[in-house]
């Protein structure tokens, strides 16, 4: 209850001051906690550097923990956590992935099954030193941060693929690839029209684009061409 305007103003000002002091005190406390947390995290990374670099499960748990608290150990090699060596690890993996994509894309075209990449990377490694699909995804996200390269992760029928050609896949492209994925056969335009219930011009336009981008190959038949999609029906490694 206020008896006059001046009392009301004075009260408001007292409340504001108290509020500001409380907030400032809390911020200071949080800042101290954050510094302490950083030190603890750094100590943890130093102590467990070997496990972080060599044990995939440990590495992923560590990365997840960092992510949860908003810390990116891959932001810079000079950062607090950069000295753990994770940045180097993922940089090296990114370079290997780029090389693998170049060699695999001769056979596969522009999209590569992530599992194929993983198995290629792990070919001569023990289980302890193996790379996981999560490692590959982390490295790929780093590739894209550095180069805006157009490398992109896709899901087609629950399978994870890496697209390594610059042009993005449209919804129509993805629909056709999803439809043919895993089926080792060629498709005529009339067959695709019937199964996807699209107009002939839409099918023809999309298939032509997939041909131009290297996702589709033609098979010459007597009546009409058949179209094949090696990227989504071949496994590179047995």
């Amino acid at each position: 209850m206020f008896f006059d305007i001046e009392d009301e103003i004075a009260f408001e000002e007292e409340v504001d001051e108290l509020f500001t002091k409380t907030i400032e005190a809390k911020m200071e406390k949080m800042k101290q906690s954050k510094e302490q947390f950083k030190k603890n995290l750094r100590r943890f990374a130093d102590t467990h550097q070997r496990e972080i670099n060599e044990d995939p499960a440990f590495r992923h748990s560590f990365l997840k923990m960092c992510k949860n608290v908003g810390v990116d150990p891959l932001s810079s090699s000079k950062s607090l956590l950069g000295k753990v060596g994770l940045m180097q690890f993922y940089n090296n993996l990114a370079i290997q992935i780029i090389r693998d994509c170049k060699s695999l894309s001769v056979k596969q075209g522009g999209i590569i099954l992530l599992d194929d990449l993983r198995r290629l990377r792990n070919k001569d490694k023990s289980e302890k030193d193996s790379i996981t699909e999560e490692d590959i995804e982390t490295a790929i996200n780093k590739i894209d941060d550095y180069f805006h390269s157009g490398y992109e992760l896709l899901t087609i029928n629950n399978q994870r693929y890496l697209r390594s050609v610059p042009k993005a896949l449209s919804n129509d492209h993805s629909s056709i690839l999803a439809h043919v994925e895993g089926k080792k056969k060629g498709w005529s335009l009339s067959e695709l029209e019937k199964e996807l219930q699209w107009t002939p011009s839409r099918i023809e336009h999309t298939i032509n684009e997939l041909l131009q981008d290297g996702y589709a190959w033609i098979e010459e038949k007597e009546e009409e061409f058949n179209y094949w999609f090696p990227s989504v029906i071949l496994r590179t490694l047995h």
Partner: protein
Amino acid sequence: KKEIFPDIYDLPPFFTLQKVEETKNRQFEMWHEIMFKYFDLDNRFVIHIDKDLKKLPFFNPKLQIGLKKHVLVNLVESLIDIKRAEWVNEGASFIIFTRDINSLAEKIWQWIKDHSLLNEFETVENTKLDFHYEKSPFFNLPDFLLERVLLLLRDQGRVYLFDEDYNQLHHDDERKIVLFKIDPKAE
């Protein structure tokens, strides 16, 4: 032989000439590799267009599908462009260089240096008969390939070539190479 054929060899479109330039280049690159490996393993260097069209590697018995003649001709032309083939028998056959002549020449030159053959005369015949050559890069080389290597080494100033009368063979001389001598000053 299983390692010679990539997975795509078992898909029909691999035997159709692809119309998109980039895809065709990829297709041809894979075909080149298949041909180099297959014919190297088979130790074959002369391929007949009509006779060999219905055989491996140009015909896939599992698919019962093979390359059409015009596609094979296209392939050979692309090999000629990269100096890995030549037409013979008026286009009825072609020679394939399953190994790159330059790297083969380097390999042979290195072997010659390592085995202290500098300043020696040697006959072409001896490289086939003498057991010392069994583990050398000369071993099992067909005549035409050895001749190409020797001509290249001559052009590089590393060997002198002679006919059976000890007459030196110079550039464009078509007499048969019988003898060669390493230039001692060559590196």
